[in-house]
């Protein structure tokens, strides 16, 4: 099932104008069974299985609804700005050798995803490619690759599969961010780790007017904001197809102000800011239903996933070096090598 009628969507955006989102095959699709075969029976059996099932599409993975939502935004952008190239461009990244990748192409066609770029690296690191082609965000199930990407200045996060996935909107893209060590640097997080939550609140109130330094996902929020402004310009502020959320342990009463002031200074807007003052994030995320949620602490990532949110770990900053206060270990997901 390789052939399909030519796309009626018009010419492809040039990569320098588009917003490039790179997703690995194992987060876009559910490849658990194949991963098991690889781990238990080895490379040859894995390849044999893939080739034998080449025309059988994979079922959706945790990034699938996010990618569909990106496409929905593109459709609405094209309606309003038919000449513009400022659109999302999704690239599929896989470690697999190319002929195993045929099954991936068949799956893309089956699910009618508008992905025309892919990168099958045959076992090599994709990081060089990501850098060379101006990648705005990289999502993978492999924490090693994500770490490497962050080290090269690319916004990246390790995506986990929730046990159940809550239903999300098909027309409005919702992206939720933690604040410290995700949008902002980990400077305040360091205080929290060293001295606890109360001291953190005190410190932040005292430094309210000093902007925080930026974190790895600030750039991604920025590009979302640019697109939002394009909708506002056409009168779509109330029902904007993109909605952003800040979900932070900061408190509205004290430390929250510094976060909001920093965003304002950066010229960035966030649609909803939720200050939890240390409360768990799972329940609020279940209400918000974002397509994706970014946090630097595995405790929050797992808490969100438990309640059905597609949560991604940003392995950045002090939280990665200091043991979790709640004693939960990071999940390690091995990659196909």
């Amino acid at each position, binding site marked *: 099932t*390789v052939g399909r009628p030519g796309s009626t969507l018009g010419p492809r955006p040039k990569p320098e104008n588009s917003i490039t989102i790179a997703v690995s095959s194992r987060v876009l699709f559910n490849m658990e069974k194949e991963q098991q075969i690889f781990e238990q029976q080895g490379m040859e059996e894995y*390849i044999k299985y893939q080739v034998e099932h080449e025309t059988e599409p994979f079922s959706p993975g945790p990034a699938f609804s996010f990618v569909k939502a990106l496409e929905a935004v593109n459709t609405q952008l094209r309606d309003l700005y038919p000449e513009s190239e400022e659109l999302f461009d999704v690239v599929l990244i896989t470690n697999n*050798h*190319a002929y195993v990748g045929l099954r991936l192409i068949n799956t893309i066609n089956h699910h009618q995803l508008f992905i025309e*770029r892919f990168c099958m690296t*045959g076992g090599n690191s994709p990081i*060089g490619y990501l850098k*060379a082609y101006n990648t705005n965000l990289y999502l993978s199930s492999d924490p090693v690759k994500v770490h490497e990407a962050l080290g090269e200045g690319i916004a990246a996060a390790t995506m986990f599969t929730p046990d159940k996935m809550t239903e999300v909107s098909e027309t409005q893209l919702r992206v939720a961010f933690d604040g410290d060590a995700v949008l902002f640097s980990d400077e305040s997080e360091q205080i929290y780790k060293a001295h606890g939550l109360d001291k953190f609140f005190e410190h932040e109130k005292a430094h309210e007017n000093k902007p925080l330094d930026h974190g790895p996902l600030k750039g991604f929020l920025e590009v979302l904001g640019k697109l939002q402004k394009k909708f506002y310009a056409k009168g779509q502020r109330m029902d904007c197809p993109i909605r952003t959320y800040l979900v932070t342990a900061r408190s509205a009463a004290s430390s929250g102000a510094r976060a909001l002031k920093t965003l304002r200074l950066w010229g960035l807007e966030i649609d909803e800011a939720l200050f939890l003052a240390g409360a768990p994030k799972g329940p609020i995320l279940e209400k918000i239903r974002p397509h994706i949620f970014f946090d630097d602490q595995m405790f929050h990532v797992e808490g969100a996933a438990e309640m059905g949110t597609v949560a991604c770990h940003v392995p950045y900053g002090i939280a990665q070096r200091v043991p979790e206060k709640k004693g939960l270990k990071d999940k390690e997901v091995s990659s196909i090598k």
Partner: protein
Amino acid sequence: MVSTVQNSDVKQKNEDQAVVVAVTFAAVFDAEAEDDRDVYRLGVALPLLQVLQRVNERLLEENPVEHQLFDIILITTETRQQQQSSSIITSTRHHGLEVGRFCFSSEDDFIESLAQNNVQLFLTTDGNEALRATQQGVPSALLDKNSASCPSDQLRVVLCQDATIQPDADSSGASKKSAQSFLTRLGQIRQKFGMFNSPLCFTIVTSCGGKDSCCSALKSLRSLGVSVDEAYCLGGAPRGPILSILRPHFLLSDGFSQLEG
């Protein structure tokens, strides 16, 4: 008049099974620079010569009586070079290059000698020479200064697929057949190694065509027995950046695009 001389320093390959690669004098040597002893300095083709030798070594490790090896010929394409035959032989032996034979021809008859020597791939730094060879049905590729910085531990072959049909490329049956035959042989060599740590790596880069065009290419190659290791579908993005990451020893495009249709 063409003369062919064997290099007695190098063990001769099996005529029927070897994959004959001809490299021009101007690619092997830096013709402008001679050192004191009238020995030519090495040119842009050095990493390629080293890597072809490496593939041969690995093939022989897998099978000590392997006959499907790369057989390298050094070919001259100008009368002036043709007349330097003894310097060329001396320089080659001085540098210990694994060149099996020398083909001393001129601009008028080098194409003929490619055919006579059953050359399956012609490598040159001269675009016109490549064009002429392709038109006569010999798959060709260009080497340039980038070739000089390629790795010498893995032969990286990149098949560049573009939507633009090149009007000057010959699409005769003979050309198509010889391109397919060359790829088939490379595919056979590739099969002798495992998925990883292979001394030969095939990559497809699809510049303008979409994923379906890349997909057809993967399938056509598979039917020729070529297992592709890496594939990059650029969706219209420029191919410069990916090529500088991949660092191919040579790009195949003319011969390859003839596989379609």
